[in-house]
């Protein structure tokens, strides 16, 4: 008897759950869509002096390296729509270029019929594998760029595009608008101009010039840091210098707070309601350190220690 009651209860619960799921708004809003993909593959023989030039539109761009002296490209153009015919028609409006002209390998995508609104949801992906010494230029309008292991020259111009770079050395020039920059293990001569973009750089070495407006900057260098110049406007800057007692700091805020860790002997050069300026000399026993000059207007500047760094998960 109890057995039967339990079975009935279980049956009722299952039925209720099923009805609940069926009627839930989340499930109701699910639509089955046809996914049409066009996959384009091309391999270029690589020679010294070549440059890969990518111009993406709403593209997710992945650049990786290999020991092969080839530039391998795989592009995926995807359209999704409940109607197969509509998805196919919309997909045909995405044009692509994969060609070499002299010493430049051009990879590009764009909407052919940009004036006509697309009915499908469309996306573009680039998977590029190239020798680590190959210079790369990426221009992306919406989407994202993931670049790793390069060692020569990297230039990125992103708008509304997230930029992730990992283990990249050499000459690096990044310009971005409305697209955050996340970098790890970077070493070289780096220039970043960012507007309305957050910048997070971890475990970085080399020389840096950063200009930023309307963003949050988190900078955590390693012992290989040579020089850092930051000019930030209407931005918040966090510099994690706890592992680097040999750095020489010149820090300044205009219309903003300036905070340094209490154990750091900061010399106050200016302290008015509008301007705060401090200097920190490097600890002599570590020798002459790299110069860190950070200037923030209409924003706060935090020189932070290990506690803050751990709190941020660095």
């Amino acid at each position, binding site marked *: 008897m109890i057995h039967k009651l339990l079975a009935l209860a279980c049956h009722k619960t299952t039925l209720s759950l099923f009805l609940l799921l069926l009627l839930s708004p989340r499930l109701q809003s699910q639509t089955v*869509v046809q996914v049409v993909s066009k996959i384009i593959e091309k391999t270029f023989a690589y020679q010294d002096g070549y440059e890969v030039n990518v111009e993406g539109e709403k593209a997710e761009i992945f650049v990786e390296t290999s020991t092969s002296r080839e530039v391998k490209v795989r592009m995926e153009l995807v359209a999704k729509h409940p109607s197969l015919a509509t998805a196919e028609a919309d997909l045909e409006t995405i044009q692509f270029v994969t060609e070499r002209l002299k010493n430049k390998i051009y990879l590009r995508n764009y909407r052919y019929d940009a004036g006509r609104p*697309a009915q499908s949801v469309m996306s573009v992906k680039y998977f590029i594998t190239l020798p680590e010494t190959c210079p790369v230029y990426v221009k992306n309008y919406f989407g994202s760029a993931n670049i790793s292991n390069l060692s020569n020259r990297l230039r990125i111009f992103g708008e509304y595009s997230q930029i992730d770079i990992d283990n990249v050395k050499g000459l690096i020039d990044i310009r971005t608008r409305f697209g955050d920059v996340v970098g790890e293990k970077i070493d070289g001569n780096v220039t970043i101009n960012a507007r309305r973009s957050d910048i997070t750089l971890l475990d970085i070495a080399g020389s840096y010039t950063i200009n930023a407006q309307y963003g949050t900057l988190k900078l955590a260098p390693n012992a290989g840091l040579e020089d850092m110049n930051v000019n930030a406007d209407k931005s918040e800057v966090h510099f994690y210098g706890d592992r680097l007692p040999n750095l020489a700091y010149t820090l300044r805020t205009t219309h903003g707070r300036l905070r340094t860790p209490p154990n750091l002997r900061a010399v106050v050069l200016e302290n008015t309601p509008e301007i705060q300026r401090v200097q920190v000399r490097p600890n002599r026993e570590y020798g002459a350190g790299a110069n860190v000059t950070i200037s923030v207007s209409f924003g706060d500047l935090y020189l932070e220690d290990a506690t803050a760094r751990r709190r941020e998960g660095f």
Partner: protein
Amino acid sequence: MEQEKNRSTLKQALDRLPQYEPGKQLWRNIEAKIEQPAAGDDNLPLAHLPAYTPPPDVWNNISRNLEADKKEKRRPLLSYLSSRWMQAAAALVLLIAAGIWLMREPGPRIQMAYAQEEMSQFGQLIDWNEEEASFERIEKELAAANRPELNLLKEELTELTAAKQEVVEMMQSYGQDPKLINQLGDIERERSEVYRQIIDQM
């Protein structure tokens, strides 16, 4: 051109003119003469023209030339390569052509793939412009006020409005992607923040 004034009178006069025809036998006689030339034809001046036969060498030369022409026309293409220079040039052309063929980059390989998946909120209509009237009103007020301390915020608002427009255009171009919706949300939050700051300062 001058026109005939008495056309009908002239026509009548012409119609009244007598008509003459050759005798029926005349044409028969002419035909008979054509078919059977008269015995006295040898007396015509043409028949007395002297006849010359060309010497045999003339025909021999003509024959030789004709033979030579035929041989020349049938000369095979490869016979031109008898000269070393021609051979070298041909080899070079072949090498260049082979090089171009080998060095050429083949076109990309293109494949199509088809699948199905479930998407949430596909094609959901979202009205991004519900509050646009408020933003437009405040921008007009800012332009009218033209106060230095507010102009910076006005510039900020203009920049964010342009950014919103760019995201909306991208949505129209590539579809209403969840990532684009998130980006639009971020920009709208920033715009609202600037809007609040403007209201506070006004």
